[in-house]
């Protein structure tokens, strides 16, 4: 690991961004290194190597399949100062859920820069600007947020590399415990089926005919969905289902 970092650092120290050929070999070395960090204990060292590759200083990996109110539950791994994570995790989740589904799709793997609020204390020498790269590991949308030194410009192409590599790395590392808690599992197949037909504009009576069960059973399914999703009306339950890509 040390060799990789010092090699990459040596290339960077020559001044401008390294030559294309050299950049590629640094990337190939990084992939090999990540291949050795695939246990759960390897998550932070792997993310550190990815952060170093793009010359950023701190990483924060978030998952977006939790409720915006969940805040810290969304954090998969981070070496940001804890107070910063606590201050912004909730705001970032809320920001993501305000984005339209289409914009989320179109901005995948595009590095995006934002400013931290003024009341958040930033470590000395670290820029108030941070970079976000979003990707999907299966159904789960994740974001890698990077802090970097002040007056520093991150390479766009390296940031995109890091997006893909973090996606691969998380696909291997995060398959275990925490990707399992899929919210779709909480709803039964029949309940999802009902949601789907309602979103297509069908009434309870029509769905009863389509599924060959009684109208009351359908209404029971919907009531059950509204209870599980803590939604007040049918419209809100459908909006929830659309936002969570269930229908």
């Amino acid at each position, binding site marked *: 690991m040390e060799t990789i970092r010092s090699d990459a650092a040596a290339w960077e120290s020559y001044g401008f961004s390294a030559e294309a050929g050299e950049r*590629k070999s640094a*990337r*190939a070395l990084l*992939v*090999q290194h*990540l*291949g050795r960090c*695939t246990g759960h204990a390897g998550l932070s060292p792997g993310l550190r190597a990815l952060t170093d590759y793009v010359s950023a200083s701190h990483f924060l990996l978030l998952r977006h399949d939790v409720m915006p109110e969940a805040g810290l539950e969304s954090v998969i791994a981070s070496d940001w100062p804890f107070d910063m994570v606590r201050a912004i995790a909730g705001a970032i989740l809320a920001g993501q*859920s*305000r984005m*339209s*589904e*289409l*914009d*989320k*799709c*179109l901005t*995948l*793997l595009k590095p995006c820069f934002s400013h931290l609020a003024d009341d958040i204390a930033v470590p000395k020498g670290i820029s108030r600007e941070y970079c976000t790269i979003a*990707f*999907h*590991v*299966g*159904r789960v*949308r994740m974001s890698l947020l990077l802090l970097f030194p002040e007056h520093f410009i991150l390479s766009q192409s390296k940031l*995109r*590399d890091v997006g*893909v*590599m973090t*996606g*691969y*790395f*998380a*696909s*291997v590392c995060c*398959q275990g415990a925490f*990707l399992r808690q899929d919210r779709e599992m909480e709803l039964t*197949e029949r309940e*999802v*089926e009902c*949601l*789907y037909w*309602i*979103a*297509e*504009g069908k*009434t309870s009576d029509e769905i009863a005919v389509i599924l060959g069960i009684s109208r009351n059973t359908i209404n029971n399914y919907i009531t059950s969905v509204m209870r599980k999703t803590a*939604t*007040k*009306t*049918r*419209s*809100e339950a*459908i*909006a929830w289902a*659309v*936002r969570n*890509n*269930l*229908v």
Partner: protein
Amino acid sequence: MGMGIQLSPPAGIEAEIRLARPPKAVTASDFVSRLQVMQTILGAGYFAVLRLGGHGLPSARKLTLSLHNLAHDADGHGRELLDAYGAVMLEHLEASMLPLIWDGVGDNQFAESSVETFTTRLPPRLLPWSGMAFPVRLGAHGNGYVLFMGTFIAPSSDLIIDMHMKSCQVLIDMLACEEKKLAPAEALSEREIACLQMAGDGCISEAIAEKMGLSVHTVNAYLGTATTKLDAVNRIQAIAKAIRLGYIT
């Protein structure tokens, strides 16, 4: 009146975001030439784009061949491909971002990855060609795979990352092209959007009316016109469509 003034700034920002997207008209032949370049770089003989169709039910989702250069008997080859790997690809797309790789039938057929940890191998010898498939999960829309097939495919890790990124971009651009077709014929007004948003947030018409300082009848009328413009049969379908199209969140 006050409401109209309050609502206009977000609408203005939205217009800017939409303008920032490339207005260029990308055609199918543009995609074909981009994919052919990628195919050449990978040393493959064919490419194919599979897209995920069927909103909703897991059982209703399926991959379909949307763009390819499988020359003769394309239908047969497409069916063969989906019969062999369709189900496993569908499952993989739900769980992982790792590229898929498989060996074809025949002595000199193989596909190799320089990073086995970050590729997933499919059962070998089911198809006449070896190949590699890049899963692309964009979110609510436009998900699928970009595939390259040939007799011998052995990309370096650098090439895999580059090609995966390009595959994502191809599906993003395909989605951006379709966005125009998805958009309703007539744009929704600010008030219609505001009513839909509140309805989607769980407000009943009475509550929306109170918040907006309108009568319940007016709110229902706005929701009705929005439903018509979105070509939906009722309010609930209008909300679903408005979220998918990005009018409300």
